[in-house]
């Protein structure tokens, strides 16, 4: 036993010493490109970034791409002190996050990578609901809402208690939904079942005839047999979320862009540059594979242009 421990300690110190040599020289030719790309942020964007990293790894096996899921806000905290090269974000960067980054002389290039359609769903056995207007959604979800029974929404609906399900208040999804429906991010009634795990929300709505909930499109797409989608009417007739209606923007106001934010300083390292270039080129195909919706072609060109010229600051999310 004693011998074993001594051996272990020796090995540890040996590896420590070897490591002091530091990163070896970085070359820029194709499969000898090495180095690291550090990514953190939203768990919503994670599946796309993971897919890109997986494909990128096949081309550049020596580049180490690592992806964390600290959440959009948690990721920005790391990004704004220079700990990561790229931040995955399921909502635009907030002003106070920009301020924090600027304090540390860190800038960002804002790059939308896909759309996600927030889906409002009800139980499969819900026979009365045909669609909801944005105004009805607002009445259901606004702070201090008086909607407690289904017939509080429309009087011919059953007088049964409505059970509400939604993501936790730390998630970008919650931020986006409340902003789009209630006009202010985080402003929402508080008496609903919250979970950070969207699968819990799926289970909740699937198991309760009088439930209503919302979450990302990918979770609806995998559970179409258990859930009924609610078409949303924002004044131009009820529209259900689908690849097409999210892509062309008719599913409004609940289709949202998701982003990566890139540190221009990191782009001086060729492995990060190559990775982002690859990301933008492949994101249309890969995002659809993992349940998101690719961006329209016209927008893709704008994004490539912004990236090429390294133009920093908010642009897309300002519109």
């Amino acid at each position, binding site marked *: 036993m004693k011998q074993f421990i001594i051996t272990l300690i020796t090995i540890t110190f040996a590896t420590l010493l070897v*490591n002091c040599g530091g990163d070896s020289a970085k070359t820029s030719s194709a499969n000898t490109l090495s180095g690291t790309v550090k990514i953190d942020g939203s768990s919503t964007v994670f599946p796309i970034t*993971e897919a890109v990293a997986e494909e990128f790894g096949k081309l550049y096996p020596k580049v180490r791409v690592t*992806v964390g899921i600290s959440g959009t806000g948690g990721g920005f905290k790391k990004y704004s002190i220079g700990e990561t090269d790229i931040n995955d974000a399921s909502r635009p960067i907030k002003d106070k996050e920009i301020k924090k980054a600027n304090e540390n002389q860190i800038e960002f290039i804002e790059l939308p990578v896909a759309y996600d359609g927030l889906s409002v769903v009800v139980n499969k056995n819900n026979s009365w609901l045909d669609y909801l207007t944005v105004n009805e959604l607002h009445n259901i979800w606004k702070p201090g809402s008086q909607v407690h029974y289904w017939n509080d929404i429309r009087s011919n609906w059953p007088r049964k208690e409505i059970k509400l399900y939604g993501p936790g208040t730390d998630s970008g999804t919650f931020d986006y939904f409340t902003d789009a429906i209630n006009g202010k991010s985080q402003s929402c009634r508080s008496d609903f079942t919250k979970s950070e795990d969207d699968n819990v929300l799926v289970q909740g709505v699937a198991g309760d005839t009088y439930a209503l909930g919302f979450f990302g499109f990918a979770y609806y797409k995998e559970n179409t047999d258990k859930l009924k989608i609610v078409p949303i009417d924002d004044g131009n007739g009820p529209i259900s979320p689908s690849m097409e209606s999210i892509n062309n923007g008719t599913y409004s106001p609940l289709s949202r862009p998701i982003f990566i934010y890139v540190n221009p300083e990191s782009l001086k390292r060729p492995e990060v540059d190559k990775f982002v270039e690859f990301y933008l080129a492949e994101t249309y195909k890969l995002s659809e594979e993992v349940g998101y919706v690719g961006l329209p072609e016209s927008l893709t060109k704008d994004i490539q242009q912004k990236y090429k010229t390294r133009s920093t600051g908010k642009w897309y999310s300002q519109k």
Partner: protein
Amino acid sequence: MNDILSRRKLKAEIFRIIATISTWSSIIILIILLGNIAWDGLSKVNWTFLNNFPSRFPHKAGIKAAIWGSIWMLALVAIIAVPIGVSAAIYLEEYAKKNKLSRFIEINIANLAGVPSIIYGILGLTIFVRFFQLDRSLLAGSLTMSLLILPVIIMAAREAIKAVPKSIRLGAFAVGATRWQTIQSHVLPAATPGIFTGVILAMSRAIGETAPLIMIGALTYVAFVPENINDPFTTLPIQIYNWVSRPQVEFHHLAAAGIIVLLVVLLTMNAAAILIRNRSLKKYKW
């Protein structure tokens, strides 16, 4: 008279039934849980799964990076936490005077064992990741985990040392041994089985923890095996957690397979420790 006797017997019988039900209900729940996981995941545990990196395709995804990350972390935690924990226990039991200060330290260690693990994560993030600039490396993760399990190891080691009869120490002193000789040749070997039990419990906790690692920013997608203690890493519980939260049901099955692997690693580790413990148990008998 007879009435009182039968009432006492009835009480005894009721207690026996309650105790039996308690035992069996926990065993049955365990069997159901294990059965459910085996049902979901057993078919997914194969060489591809063990030898592949994470992927967006469930049939290609594997846990190689997570297995190696967990093994690295456990080895480092053992190297860091066991010597420190045992030394601290020896100091508190054999050297420290029994005064207010040592009572104060004692109470604090006991309290630390009950602190939620996420607090250790915040501490690790501030001290190891940020202050010492260790980044999100294996070393930072292992140091954080070591902090987390140190109180458990210290308390178990103290109990084990305390259980060594005083006569053993006095005997050693009587033939002229110094305090160190006494500890090294008598107290420690005799306390080893008890210390090992504590270490097993502590390490089992370390292998299953996710919260502090997520807090210090351990990663989710890692497509390489860590080569040294400065490398970024992921561990089994983090990978399982990520798969469970995916929308696709195939990933949920992978999570079950990951749980099976985690259980196997855990049981192997515990079995090894129990073997070592039993070997030293045989040597010392009073």
